[in-house]
């Protein structure tokens, strides 16, 4: 009686046309050809101009310069570096310095952002106003302005090394940065670190054990006293047993500067302060929106089931808010990383400053160096957005919408 369902006809010609030209078919192919020709023409123009320009100036293109020695110094390096190292090492130094400032910045931006968001959400009128003031003021001023402010204005306000502000005679603040005692490893260091690691692992194990106990037998275990013992007691015990793990070398004013101790340079401080306070204002808005996006009924449903306020927040509100928060939050992290390139304005040796700045002007290999610099940033953001789309895909699956 009825017509049975059949397989569709293959229509290969149509499919090929679609693949080549999209919905527009052959017209699409034609458009593409023209467009491709224009692109090719532009690429040709650019390349041929660059080639003739470079040729007439006898500039050697290529990455050979990376092996030459840089012969300039950098005032903050995470890996050992001296003026006789290569430009490639300068590149690494720059990348690491960029990562350093990004990681620190991201940490503080997140902390400040969440605190400000909580202030804004607080039932306390005054505090929420203060939070709002912070967000509005910070968001409406250029970041470069803020970084320069922190650097120039605050640097000018700080005293010289001889008039340092000293805390307990061990920490010093002056216009050379923050000087803290540096730790020198002692024989007791290894057991101490081992104990610390042990304590950490054990605490984590305890936590999952407690969760299992709750789920398995319905036993509630208060774990914080044990955690305290593990994390504080155990290391203390090793100190008693093996002696102190480190001795501190106190900074001493010697000559012009402090000798001994570790110094955090003011460029790093200004940059991280600027980046993290700026990004924090945006994060605060994201977090606030995320938390407000969780319906009020969810909180009520939680409390009507007898869950405590803390448990409701932890088990119900936060997981739901996180879905809303995480994607834009990642964007802000990316922005912060990109914005760290403003370091060039205050002489912090990040990638743009030492590599696309100093190395470029010493070698003149503009095309190669700028390409490498842009490549680093591009790679970071592409990898991050790839991770984020996987995350987004998993969320939409679990929501089952």
């Amino acid at each position, binding site marked *: 009686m009825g017509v049975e369902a059949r397989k569709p006809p293959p229509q290969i010609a149509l499919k090929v046309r679609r693949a080549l030209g999209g919905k527009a078919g052959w017209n699409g192919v034609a458009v593409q050809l023209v467009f491709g020709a224009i692109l090719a023409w532009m690429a040709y123009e650019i390349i041929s101009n660059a080639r003739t320009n470079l040729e007439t100036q006898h500039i050697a293109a290529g990455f050979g310069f990376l092996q030459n020695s840089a012969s300039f110094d950098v005032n903050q390096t995470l890996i050992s570096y001296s003026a006789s190292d290569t430009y490639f090492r300068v590149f690494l130094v720059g990348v690491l310095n960029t990562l350093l400032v990004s990681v620190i910045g991201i940490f503080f931006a997140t902390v400040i952002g969440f605190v400000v968001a909580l202030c804004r959400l607080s039932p306390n009128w005054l505090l929420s106003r203060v939070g709002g003031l912070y967000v509005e003021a910070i968001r409406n001023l250029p970041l470069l302005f803020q970084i320069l402010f922190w650097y120039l204005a605050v640097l000018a306000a700080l005293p010289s090394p001889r008039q340092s502000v000293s805390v307990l005679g061990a920490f010093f603040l002056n216009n050379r940065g923050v000087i803290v005692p540096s730790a020198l490893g002692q024989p007791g260091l290894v057991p101490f670190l081992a104990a610390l690691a042990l304590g950490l692992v054990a605490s984590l194990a305890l936590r999952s054990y407690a969760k299992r106990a*709750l*789920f*398995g*037998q*319905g*036993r*509630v275990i208060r774990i914080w006293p044990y955690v305290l013992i593990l994390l504080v007691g155990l290391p203390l015990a090793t100190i008693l047993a093996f002696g102190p793990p480190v001795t501190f070398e106190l900074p001493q004013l010697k000559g012009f500067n402090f000798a001994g101790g570790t110094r955090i340079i003011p460029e790093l401080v200004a940059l991280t302060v600027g980046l993290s306070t700026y990004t924090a204002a945006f994060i605060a808005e994201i977090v606030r929106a995320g938390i407000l996006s969780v*319906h009020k*009924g*969810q909180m*009520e*449903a939680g*409390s*009507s*089931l*007898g*869950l*405590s306020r803390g*448990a409701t927040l932890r*088990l*119900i509100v936060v*997981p*739901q808010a996180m*879905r809303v928060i995480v994607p834009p939050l990642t964007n802000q992290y990316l922005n912060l990383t990109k914005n760290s390139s403003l370091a060039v304005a205050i002489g912090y040796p990040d990638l743009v400053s030492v590599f696309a700045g100093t190395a470029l002007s010493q070698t003149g290999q503009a095309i190669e160096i700028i390409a490498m610099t842009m490549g680093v940033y591009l790679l970071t953001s592409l990898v991050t957005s790839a991770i984020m789309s996987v995350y987004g895909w998993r969320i939409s699956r*679990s*929501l*089952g*919408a």
Partner: protein
Amino acid sequence: MSDPIVKISGLNKWYGEFHVLRDIDLDVTKGERIVICGPSGSGKSTLIRCINALEEFQEGEIVVDGIELGPNLKHVDAVRREVGMVFQSFNLFPHLTVLDNCTLAPIWVRNIPKKDAEATAMKFLERVKIPHQANKFPGQMSGGQQQRVAIARALTMNPKVMLFDEPTSALDPEMVKEVLDTMVDLAEEGMTMLVVTHEMGFAKEVANRVVFMDAGQIIEANTPNEFFAAPQHARTKLFLSQILR
């Protein structure tokens, strides 16, 4: 019927300057099913939320199963454990499966082992006739199914009293019935229930008492038969004439 399990006396509540609940006195005995109705804004939801300590009140007293909720909201947690609540908008947790929705409170509040909690939850999910959906997320279910899960979730805490705040008014007409059926079942098992609803069929079938509220006060309370057949107060008459058309 014996001692009251919920005892409300002299309850007064204000929102700012606005006097929402005025001198409410209401005793609910064990096993009693009370339907509360009244025009919009009359304070029904507010009253029911006061019983569950979701709202503070300024005067009066609510005693639930011997635990006193003064104006200071002492004993809030104890009361909440005795009282289950079902909301108009379900308020299921969208990030948890149906089963996890139902085991969350038993595990974290009553510290019941997960296995046992799941067994109990499945029992109640069977009672609301959706055991096979246990591993779905709320977003994948129809409104009626969601509301039934919400009922099951409240039941897993073994409450002595169940509060319903217009449980069917956010549902498509076809789904109203399945939820009401579940509530009727529950009533037949002897659960003490306070239900805010405009489903008069349900009231007639199930309620021991119908309470009519207006302007924050209890205007009239009566058995369903008498209430519908012979309303006493002018406002009740007006309201019924509108709603029964």
